[in-house]
């Protein structure tokens, strides 16, 4: 049984904490900006070349910033051993998982929405027509990243070298998300007909469903000895 | 521990036998000669010759019959080919010819054209595939034997 009450309170807590400290989102945004800057130094691009690589750069930046946010999601629970209190919640832990996924998704999505105009301006993109499809891609890929990322954030937070282990464990597992997101984004940015990249959206949707379910189930074992 | 060494001795012997067998098979049936070796040694029976089809010498008569010179490092070898339609018979191409050397006419009678072999890759792949596994297995079984001996010596196992 999932308690919606617990989900709501976890989301509330994460939002209030974030609103007051502004740690997660601000560090994600600035990190992403730096990544974008470094990329634009490393590739000197005309508009044609930019079209080819921009989707890749975008998702590399999003994935890395996402990992920063995900890492913070549970490492903040370490202060005053709050994680112990979460483990002792007398409910199924899936509720905590869903709350955390919702909060992480929201943070990552907000950062992506904030950064996207930056890409548009810095790399001279034209995106007026396909904006809704692009948002759908962002949505699906971010759900996938946060679904599996939240599980691994909770898993790595209690081990040594957690800052390194989170990306090491997470990145190979999100290969499908990255491929699908990059291909779909590329399609949308090029203004291709949606039929050409539909399969990637389907793949993302399947990934989201599968890993929300699997992670939801596995989270029980992460939290409960 | 004695059993352990006997077993691994057996494995080593089998491995050596297999390697020797494979090497003999390679030398007898698969190793190819260079054109100059053929001219000097004049081997009897069927051999494989590796070389390049010399430019401007290829003459095709009917389908499945051709004459050309096969170029080695310095010497070239006149070849008369008669066999299945040669798809990959072109000038300046490196080939393996299978056939017999006729010493009186000084012409190599080829009956088949093979693909240039890459035995180095095959040997490399098999060594890479099997050697680490054998070493790993050796190390593991050795460690198990040692641990077992240690547990036996420490008399700890009795209370379980």
């Amino acid at each position, binding site marked *: 049984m999932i308690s919606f009450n617990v989900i709501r309170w976890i989301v509330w807590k994460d939002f209030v904490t974030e609103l007051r400290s502004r740690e997660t989102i601000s560090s994600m945004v600035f990190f992403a900006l730096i990544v974008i800057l470094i990329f634009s130094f490393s590739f000197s691009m005309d508009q044609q070349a930019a079209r080819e690589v921009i989707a890749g750069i975008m998702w590399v930046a999003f994935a890395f910033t996402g990992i920063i946010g995900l890492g913070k999601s549970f490492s903040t629970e370490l202060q005053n051993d709050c994680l112990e209190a979460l483990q002792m919640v007398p409910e199924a832990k899936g509720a905590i998982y869903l709350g955390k996924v919702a909060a992480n998704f929201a943070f990552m999505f907000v950062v992506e929405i904030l950064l996207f105009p930056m890409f548009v301006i810095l790399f001279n993109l034209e995106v007026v027509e396909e904006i809704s499809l692009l948002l759908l891609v962002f949505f699906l890929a971010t759900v996938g990243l946060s679904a*599996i990322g939240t*599980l691994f954030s909770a*898993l*790595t937070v*209690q*081990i*040594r070298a957690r800052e390194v*282990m989170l990306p*090491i464990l997470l*990145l*190979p*597992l999100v*290969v*499908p998300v990255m*491929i699908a997101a990059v*291909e779909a984004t590329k399609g949308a940015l090029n203004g291709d007909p949606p039929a050409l990249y539909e399969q*990637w959206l389907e*793949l993302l949707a399947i*990934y989201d469903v*599968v*890993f929300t379910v*699997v992670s939801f189930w*596995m989270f029980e*074992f*992460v939290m409960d*000895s | 521990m004695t059993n352990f060494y006997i077993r691994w001795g057996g494995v080593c012997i*089998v491995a050596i036998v*297999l390697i020797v*067998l*494979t090497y003999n*098979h390679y030398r007898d049936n*698969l190793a190819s000669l260079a054109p100059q070796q053929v001219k000097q040694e004049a081997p009897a029976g069927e051999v494989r010759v590796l070389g390049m089809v010399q430019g401007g010498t290829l003459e095709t008569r009917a389908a499945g019959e051709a004459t050309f010179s096969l170029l080695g490092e310095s010497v070239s070898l006149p070849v008369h080919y008669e066999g299945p339609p040669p798809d990959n018979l072109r000038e300046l191409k490196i080939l393996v010819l299978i056939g017999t050397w006729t010493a009186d006419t000084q012409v190599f009678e080829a009956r088949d054209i*093979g*693909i*240039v*072999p*890459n035995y180095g*890759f*095959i040997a490399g*792949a*098999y060594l*890479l*595939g*099997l050697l*680490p*596994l054998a070493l*790993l*297995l050796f190390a*593991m*079984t050795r460690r*198990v034997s040692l*641990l*077992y001996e240690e*547990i*036996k010596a*420490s008399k*700890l*196992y*009795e209370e*379980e």
Partner: protein
Amino acid sequence: MTIHRVIRKVQRFEGWFGGGAALCLIAGLYVGLIGSPPDYYQGEVVRIMYIHVPLAHTSLLGYTVLAVGSLWYLWKRDPIVDNMCQAVAALSAVFTALALGTGMIWGKPTWDTWWTWDARLTSFTVLLLILIGYLMLRTFVDDPEKEARYGAILAIVGFVDLPIIHFSVEWWRTLHQPQSISMRGVSISSGLLVPLLLMSVGMSLLFSYMLMVRTQLLYLDRLLHAKKGRLLSQFHLSKSDS
């Protein structure tokens, strides 16, 4: 049951696997290297397939065993199942690495390149990364109970992910690279099938044998140290009494 009786039992049992593996591999090597004709398209190089494909199959088999063992561990919490998982992960990683290595050696003469982002090579690389991640994760946890639990979780999630990774990489490849580089040249004729089958069965048996040895190794190691730890603690205890 005393430890050495357990070990005796396993040792008697594992002999069948070890012997079977040896027989199959020797026969497979003989047929593969000497007894079978070269392939029409690939020539002699096709013989690399007889070692490469069994290694790859076996590593996938190993990962399946790992996932099943992990589920079993989460259900029953039996430490020896966890020892088995740890053993199978390490062996799977070795087999995957060797499959990649032999694949690269095969790629050089057939595709004229050591590495290509072929779907199969790419998904095996990701598999190897996941297995290495699993082994690394286990070294970074202090509590053995936690170590086993976290490892099991990662193994299960990775197992579910594997087919998705494979499909996504395959779609991605077909999108970017038409079928110029592929293994379609190799049609499995019966001449290829016999050595391939022998080597596959031999490799699976070898893997099972190595798994038994390694599980035994980890189990004995844990046992010995647990006993030593207990003796050490008892030593402290008696010292504090006096």
